[in-house]
């Protein structure tokens, strides 16, 4: 971080956060605009605002390459805003350029977070942007020329910045009727005088009809600070309000040491032509700055109550709440209390329970973020890869407003990126091939998320070539991944082999995928957050990956059930009902001897938990135990256990990493938890139980 002023480091994190958010917004706007082949006025203003903010904050951080780049983008959009029709002249390249610019800034910001950051040169992109600006201007009607003076003047500033002599600053401002002039001095050693001056202007904007300053764009060049220190910062404004109010604003502004009111027309009566033109440009500038202030104000209005919190603090809070929940049940169901009549105590614990529930809900909701952010990134990948690979692909996203825990959200970004790249690179065929196959030329990738019973189910499907089972088989054979005779593999098993470590079907390593780290990394990442992945594919029709992720990692409402000596926790969300079988005649037997039960005219299979987990000392007589009906999105079944113990909230803990090798998750368990008495209970996964049963 050599290039960052040590005094600035405390602000660095804020800067990174803010800029990243803004750039994401920018990407979103650009993708939307590119799709509709038009930028709405609102979006133009939005882009302008984003670039303006980045320019200001990066200049403050002393990041010249970013600020000058942002500046030139701003310039281009300045022209567009004045005359949106001109956008058509450059619409081919402007999107690419903007993405380039946003990528450059992103890369710079990423670089900032490493220790050996050296700023890169943004002048090539700036050059291209200026070219576009010139195209638009070149075609501009004569009358518009005065307006476009401003961008030309400012577009050159990046170049001038390297040579800190931008300021013929005292050139002055034409003073006319109704104008007031103030010379402001900032406190000694307050640093960044130019930015403080800029902030002062921003504060005054709301009150003034016209606003001008010497030097004109203090924020654009940090070298102006010295000028402002020496000569003061001259503000000229015209207002319908009482000038005294304005003076008050100046007086109350941060770091203002003193100010003096200059007599109108006292100085700078003689003006040269350049100064005049600079004055006219500035008035234009003021107009659009006002528009932008209102945009900022509107935004501030809706975001006022937001604060950003360090995620480790949230994690800590979550852990604490988890411990609290466990401690609460430790107290409430303490064995010492057995058999005692404790009406008041029970009342109090119920109250406590209510509060911890609420606390937990709040903490959970704090950590929830919508998936749309991840989806957005995929949009960008599809666009970029589509251009590079020359494939027309449309990405459809469904259910972006589905919310997941922040940790999950962060973990799934990389796997998704990888899978989308795979689909783009390997699955979707070239336009000619698609035509030959009678498919629409534009490929389609669908990304859909939905919330089903405490789980998020995300599907990534494409209408590409599908998986080639023969190819997978031979590859698996070559890599020694087969564990049984070739003929015994079902198609599903073959497909799932692509997720084994060290498997990658594409022979050629391309820029985007096929680096040998493949779907196994995807699977591992997903397993880290308790997720599962499965794949279905039909040759030449497409491939669908189905990913299931628990909604949140942390706490579930569970029903404790006992089977033999073991205690299991079944998430309440998957329980439909529980009942006892009184009449053995309710149980009917399938041809293979498997048991089923008739309920209200429907027949459901019975899964004996003691069989699934081979527990010997459990109740085996169906009429003595309890039957619990469980369901997932598509299936319903009944599980048989000894008895229900009671409802309890439990903190889900993953199985120790040591046991990863054994695929415990495939046996109908999703994790484990520590009960109030310190013993461990295994958490049942209804979905998985149902699918195991289906397999049998």
């Amino acid at each position, binding site marked *: 971080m050599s290039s960052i002023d040590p005094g600035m480091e405390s602000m660095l994190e804020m800067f990174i956060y803010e800029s990243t958010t803004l750039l994401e917004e920018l990407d979103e706007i650009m993708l939307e605009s590119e799709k509709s082949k038009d930028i709405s006025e609102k979006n133009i203003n939005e882009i302008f605002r984003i670039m303006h903010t980045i320019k200001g904050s990066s200049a403050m951080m002393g990041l010249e390459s970013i600020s000058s780049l942002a500046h030139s983008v701003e310039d281009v959009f300045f022209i567009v805003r004045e005359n949106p029709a001109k956008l058509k002249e450059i619409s081919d390249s402007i999107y690419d350029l903007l993405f380039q610019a946003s990528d450059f800034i992103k890369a710079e910001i990423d670089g900032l977070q490493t220790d050996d950051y050296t700023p890169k040169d943004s002048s090539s992109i700036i050059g291209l942007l200026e070219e576009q600006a010139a195209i638009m201007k070149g075609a501009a009607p004569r009358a518009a020329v005065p307006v476009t003076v401003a961008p030309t003047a400012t577009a050159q500033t990046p170049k001038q910045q390297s040579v800190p002599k931008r300021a013929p600053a005292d050139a002055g401002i034409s003073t006319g009727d109704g104008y007031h002039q103030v010379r402001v001095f900032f406190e000694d050693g307050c640093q960044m005088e130019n930015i403080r001056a800029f902030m002062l202007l921003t504060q005054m904007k709301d009150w003034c009809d016209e606003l001008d300053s010497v030097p004109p764009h203090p924020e654009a060049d940090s070298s102006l600070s010295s000028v402002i220190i020496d000569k003061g910062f001259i503000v000229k404004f015209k207002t319908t309000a009482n000038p005294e109010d304005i003076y008050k604003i100046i007086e109350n502004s941060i770091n203002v040491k003193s100010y003096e009111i200059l007599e109108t027309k006292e100085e700078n009566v003689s003006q040269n032509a350049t100064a005049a033109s600079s004055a006219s440009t500035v008035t234009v500038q003021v107009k659009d700055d006002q528009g932008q202030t209102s945009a900022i104000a509107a935004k501030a209005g809706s975001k006022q109550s937001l604060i950003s919190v360090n995620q480790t603090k949230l994690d800590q809070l979550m852990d604490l709440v988890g411990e609290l929940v466990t401690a609460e049940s430790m107290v409430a169901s303490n064995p010492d209390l057995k058999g005692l009549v404790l009406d008041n105590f029970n009342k109090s614990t119920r109250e406590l329970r209510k509060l911890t529930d609420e606390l937990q809900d709040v903490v959970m909701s704090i950590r929830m973020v919508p998936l749309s952010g991840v989806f957005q990134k995929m949009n960008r990948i599809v666009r970029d890869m589509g251009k590079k690979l020359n494939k027309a692909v449309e990405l459809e996203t469904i259910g972006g407003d589905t919310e997941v825990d922040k940790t999950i959200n962060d973990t799934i970004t990389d796997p998704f990126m990888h899978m989308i790249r795979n689909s783009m690179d390997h699955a979707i065929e070239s336009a000619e091939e698609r035509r030959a196959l009678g498919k629409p030329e534009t490929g389609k990738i669908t990304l859909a998320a939905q919330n089903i019973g405490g789980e998020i189910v995300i599907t990534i499907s494409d209408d590409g070539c599908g998986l080639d089972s023969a190819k997978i088989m031979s590859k698996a054979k070559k890599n020694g991944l087969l564990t049984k005779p070739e003929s015994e593999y079902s198609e599903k098993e073959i497909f799932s082999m692509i997720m084994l470590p*060290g498997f990658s079907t594409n022979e050629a390593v391309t820029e985007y995928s096929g680096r040998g780290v493949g779907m196994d990394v995807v699977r591992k990442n997903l397993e880290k957050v308790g997720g599962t992945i499965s794949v279905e594919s039909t040759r030449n029709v497409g491939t669908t990956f189905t990913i299931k992720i628990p909604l949140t990692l942390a706490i579930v409402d569970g029903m404790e059930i006992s089977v033999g000596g073991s205690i299991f926790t079944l998430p309440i969300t998957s329980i439909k009902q529980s009942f006892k079988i009184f009449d053995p005649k309710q149980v009917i037997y399938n041809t293979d001897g498997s048991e089923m039960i008739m309920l209200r005219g429907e027949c459901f299979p019975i899964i004996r938990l003691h069989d699934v987990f081979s527990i010997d000392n459990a109740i085996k007589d169906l009429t003595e135990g309890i039957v619990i009906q469980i369901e997932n999105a598509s299936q319903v079944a009944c599980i048989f256990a000894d008895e229900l113990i009671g409802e309890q909230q439990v903190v889900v803990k993953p199985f120790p990493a040591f046991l990863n090798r*054994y695929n415990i998750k*495939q046996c109908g368990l999703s994790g484990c938890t520590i009960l109030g008495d310190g013993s*461990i209970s295994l958490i049942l996964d209804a979905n998985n139980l149902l699918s195991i049963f289906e397999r049998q």
Partner: protein
Amino acid sequence: MVMEENIVSTVMDDLQGKFLTFHIEDTIYGIELLHVIEIISIQNATRIPNVPTYIKGIINLRGKIVPVIDVRLKFKQSERVYDEKTCIIVVVIEDMQVGLIVDRVSEVVTVDQAELANPPELGTTSNEKYLQSIATVGEKVVLNIDCHKFFHSDLNYTKI
């Protein structure tokens, strides 16, 4: 006299030649003290499905879930009813904690490098391939277990 800054390395050196010895039947095994975190008395493990029989389940070690392995079963010896001498040695391997159920823990021995002999190359039974070295301490023979080899079959999944 020991210099202040040497203390840390001295501690490491101190642990270097030390082995915690434990008994399985009449055989004495040793495990490098570096790997050992603590010794706890036997407690009921929660069984988990789909794992080899030598993994007895998971236990709650002050809020941490730790898998436990019965060393007897891992060495393919017959199972034996746990008694008051049965202990769990909690070791750390690749940042993961694992409990080892042993018949009884005896002592910590210091072994000179010179007293260590390599396990025989030929005729190694499946148990001996877990060995790092064989030491003679007084009249006893201690078979030192190589933790990495010992857990190899449980860990190699993550290493591919």
